[in-house]
């Protein structure tokens, strides 16, 4: 019944793949379809969205004079830019689950491009806030990037793929600080006045975004075996039901914990970017993703969880120190260290997310990503708005909040792999299959909808780590066992 996988796979795909046809290797300098090509398409479009979302800050000195903005207007627009993505990320996760990352991200990128084009015709503080708000929705492509990587790369390299794609995409926020002033100067030299030149400059990120959406649509592919729409029609992939997917996402407590803790690494990053206009390249450090995969090889999921908790807590510690130091040189050094830990924590978070749910991967990714933005909004509103706290006090308190929220990771527990303090459960249903099959009802299993999750469970056994060699291995893919 089952096609033998060995040599058949080698002929079909450029990279070595597992039973789900997910790549087991990550080859950065390849653009082979479908795996690496999707990687490059997704990080480039995410990069474009970051460039657009943060294109306004470097040109603010000109925009604020043109639109007569006050400091409050600017602050509100900055908060609006990151708050739009909160719900957009969750919606994006749902869309990925239902329609596939290729259509979902191309759609969002094209839908938000008008907001960037229309930044050129903004003429008041309110219109400025609105265009920044709607442009910020494009940051939800983070979720489709992570979802797509999780669909194409196996557990062995998923952390690396997620980390590099996210990290290089985030570079857009830093690159735009250089790109926009350069473009603006160029246009001014051609002959436009200041107040017109910045408007023309916004066409560059808008066009980049539009072109990247076209690239994804024409060159990308959702899954190794094809696109969702083709697979739905051929019956190979079951077209899922939104209510079920949503239910399994919101009732999985681990998703909520990761959403909150992500607010205190990525959210903190966004906050720092708005408060301290200093950009660090390589912001979403791919190192975090690679570290997650490395720890998982030896210690499995428990290794991933411990590393995430340690790294994010240390980030909080350095944030507290940052708020305390007085001299400029020391504080820059502390900020560099703090930034490395925060970035790594983001990468480590998305080393865990792909394993929380298989059926509702999209919404879980969306919730986590959205949680990041919620963290940014909350932190800025509580600590960095108005004059209740000095910036130093705000930073120290933010560090304390990071440490407290990160403690929640100690509560995450996978019955098949364990949590930070407990090993895998020794009683009853404790295999990977049990965990991922629990998302499907018996009637759904009878119809065979769960087959993809079954393959995933098998491949996720690597999360047990190296020590645990032969745990109970159930018979492959036999629905009868679970009736």
């Amino acid at each position, binding site marked *: 019944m089952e096609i033998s996988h060995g040599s058949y796979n080698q002929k079909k795909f450029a990279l070595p793949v597992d039973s789900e046809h997910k790549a087991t290797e990550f080859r950065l300098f390849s653009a082979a379809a479908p795996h690496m090509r999707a990687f490059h398409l997704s990080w480039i479009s995410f990069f474009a969205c970051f460039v657009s979302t943060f294109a306004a800050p470097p040109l603010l*000195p000109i925009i*604020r*004079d*043109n639109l*007569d903005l*006050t*400091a*409050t207007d600017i602050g509100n627009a900055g908060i609006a830019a990151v708050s739009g993505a909160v719900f957009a990320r969750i919606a994006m996760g749902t869309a990925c689950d239902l329609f596939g990352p290729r*259509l979902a991200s*191309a*759609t969002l990128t*094209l*839908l938000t*491009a*008008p907001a960037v*084009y*229309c930044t*050129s*015709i903004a*003429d008041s503080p309110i219109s400025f806030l609105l265009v920044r708000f709607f442009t910020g929705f494009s940051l939800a492509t983070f979720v489709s990037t992570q979802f797509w990587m999780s669909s194409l790369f196996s557990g062995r390299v998923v952390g690396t793929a997620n980390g590099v794609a996210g990290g290089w995409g985030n570079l857009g926020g830093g690159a735009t600080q250089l790109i926009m002033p350069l473009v603006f100067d160029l246009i001014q030299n051609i002959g436009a*006045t*200041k*107040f*017109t030149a*910045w*408007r*023309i400059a916004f*066409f560059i990120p*808008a*066009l980049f975004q*539009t072109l990247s*959406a*076209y690239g994804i*649509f024409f060159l990308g592919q959702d899954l190794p075996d094809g*696109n969702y*729409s*083709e697979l*739905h*029609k*051929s019956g190979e992939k079951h077209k899922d039901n939104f209510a079920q997917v949503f239910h399994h996402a919101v009732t999985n407590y681990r998703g909520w914990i990761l959403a909150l803790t992500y607010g205190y690494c990525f959210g903190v990053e966004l906050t720092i970017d708005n408060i301290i206009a200093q950009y660090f390249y390589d912001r979403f450090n791919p190192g975090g993703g690679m570290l997650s995969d490395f720890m998982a090889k030896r210690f499995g999921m428990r290794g991933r969880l411990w590393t995430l908790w340690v790294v994010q807590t240390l980030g909080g510690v350095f944030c507290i120190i940052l708020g305390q130091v007085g001299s400029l040189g020391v504080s820059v050094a502390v900020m560099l260290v703090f930034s490395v830990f925060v970035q790594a924590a983001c990468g480590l978070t998305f080393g865990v997310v792909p394993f929380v749910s298989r059926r509702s991967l999209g919404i879980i990714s969306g919730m986590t990503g959205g949680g990041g933005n919620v963290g940014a909004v909350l932190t800025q509103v509580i600590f960095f708005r108005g004059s209740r706290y000095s910036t130093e006090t705000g930073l120290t308190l933010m560090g304390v909040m990071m440490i407290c929220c990160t403690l929640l990771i100690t509560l995450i527990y996978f019955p098949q792999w364990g949590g930070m303090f407990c090993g895998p459960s020794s009683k009853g249903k404790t295999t990977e299959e049990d965990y991922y099959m629990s998302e499907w009802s018996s009637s759904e299993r009878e119809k065979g909808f769960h087959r993809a999750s079954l393959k995933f469970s098998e491949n996720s056994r690597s999360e047990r780590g190296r020590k645990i060699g032969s745990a109970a291995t159930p018979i492959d893919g036999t629905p009868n066992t679970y009736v």
Partner: protein
Amino acid sequence: MAIRAFLFVLSCLAAATCRGATFSSLQQTLIVTASPQPAQVLKAGEDEITVTWSLNSTFPAGVDSSYKTVTIKLCYAPISQKDRGWRKTVDNLVKDKTCQHKIVANKPYIFPSNNTFTSTVLRDVPTATYFIRAYAQNSEGDEVAYGQTTDSHKAVNLFEIQAITGRHVSLDIASICFSAFSIVSLFGFFFLEKRKSKASESK
């Protein structure tokens, strides 16, 4: 009296060479008047401002011995500085951001002075409420005295400037067209996708 004024100017010079002169150390020895009426609204890039400055004769003779050049600037009134830290008034003239737009710079100071200058408001001047200030500078270019069209509280004789929007009809049309094109091509994608999946179904 003259000696005291002279010493005062010397100390200003000393302060200027050390760290940058402070505004509070400057003497208001110039009388400045300008063409805009109180509460008048001028259009950037179109309307003209005429500034006239002269030495206040109530000051002792010789007070302007160090004045070599005059720079005249447009300065923000307090209402346009509110909630805008980048226009803040600071005593240290190097860091002061009150007067960011030059009307004329380094015009030679001629004694006895009664000078006039007319220019069009530049197109990059933002919408705000303004007054005009003239700085007298010494041979090193440091400010040593000033005069302004308003009082010390910056409350009277203020006028407004209306900036250009920077928008052009061609830009508006381009924005709308590109936006519409993005949405239309999105629907094109959906159509193509449906057609492709129908084709694979019928295979």
